[in-house]
C-alpha cells in the first residue's frame, strides 16, 4: 500500500486529494499506467506528463524512479508559488 497525493488541477481531475493504492508497480511510470487503465478520471489527469511533476516521499523525482520503499507519491503541476 502506498499513499498517493494529488494537488491543484490534478486533484480536481482525479476528484480527491489523497488515497491509498494497493500496487506492485515498479516505477512511477508503471503506477501512472496502472491508475490510468483503471478509470477515465486518472487517464485525464495523467494525459500530459510534460505538464506534471512527481515527488517521492516529499522530494522531487522523475517518472522513471523506482517505487521500492516509497511510502508517499505526489502528483502535481509545476509549482507557481510566491
Amino acid at each position: 500500500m502506498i499513499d498517493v497525493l494529488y494537488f491543484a488541477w490534478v486533484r480536481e481531475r482525479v476528484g480527491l486529494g489523497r488515497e491509498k493504492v494497493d500496487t506492485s508497480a515498479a516505477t512511477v511510470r508503471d503506477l501512472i499506467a496502472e491508475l490510468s487503465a483503471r478509470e477515465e478520471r486518472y487517464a485525464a489527469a495523467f494525459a500530459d506528463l510534460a505538464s506534471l511533476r512527481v515527488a517521492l516521499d516529499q522530494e522531487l523525482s522523475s517518472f522513471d524512479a523506482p517505487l521500492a520503499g516509497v511510502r508517499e507519491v505526489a502528483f502535481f503541476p509545476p509549482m507557481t508559488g510566491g
Partner: protein
Amino acid sequence: MRLAVQSETFDLGEEANRFAAAQSGAGAIVTFTGIVRDNGGTLSAMEIEHYPGMTERAITAMMTEAQTRWALHDVLVIHRYGRLDANAPIMMVATAAPHRADAFSAAEFLMDYLKSRAPFWKKEIGVDGTEWVQAKDEDEAALTRW
C-alpha cells in the same frame, strides 16, 4: 532562521521590525513582500494550495542553501496558503547581512526559488471564473542565474 507557512495574514511592518530587532551587527536588511494584484479589478481573490510537509521541507532547504552561498546573519520566509483577497499580502522574505550585496542576492535567490520550486499552486478567482495559474517560462529562466 524562521519559516512560517500559514493561512493567517501577516503585518509587513511588524514582521520587518521583529526581524530587524533580532539582528546584531547586520548592516543591511532587505525585505520582499508579495501582494495579490487585482489585475485592474478583474481578479477578486486567489486560492493557494500547498503540500503540508513537503512545502516546509523544500523552503527550509532553500533557506539553508542561501545561508551557505551568502554571508547572512539571518533569513525569514513567510508564505500563506488558502484564500487570499486582492491586495492582501501573499508572502515575505527578509534577509540580514553585514553587506548589502549579500542581503539583496539572497533575497532574490529565495524569491526565484520560491516562485518555481516551492510546492504552492495558485488559482485565480476572477470575475470571469477561476483558473490555475500556469508556470511561467520567465520564472524558470530566472533560476539559471544562480
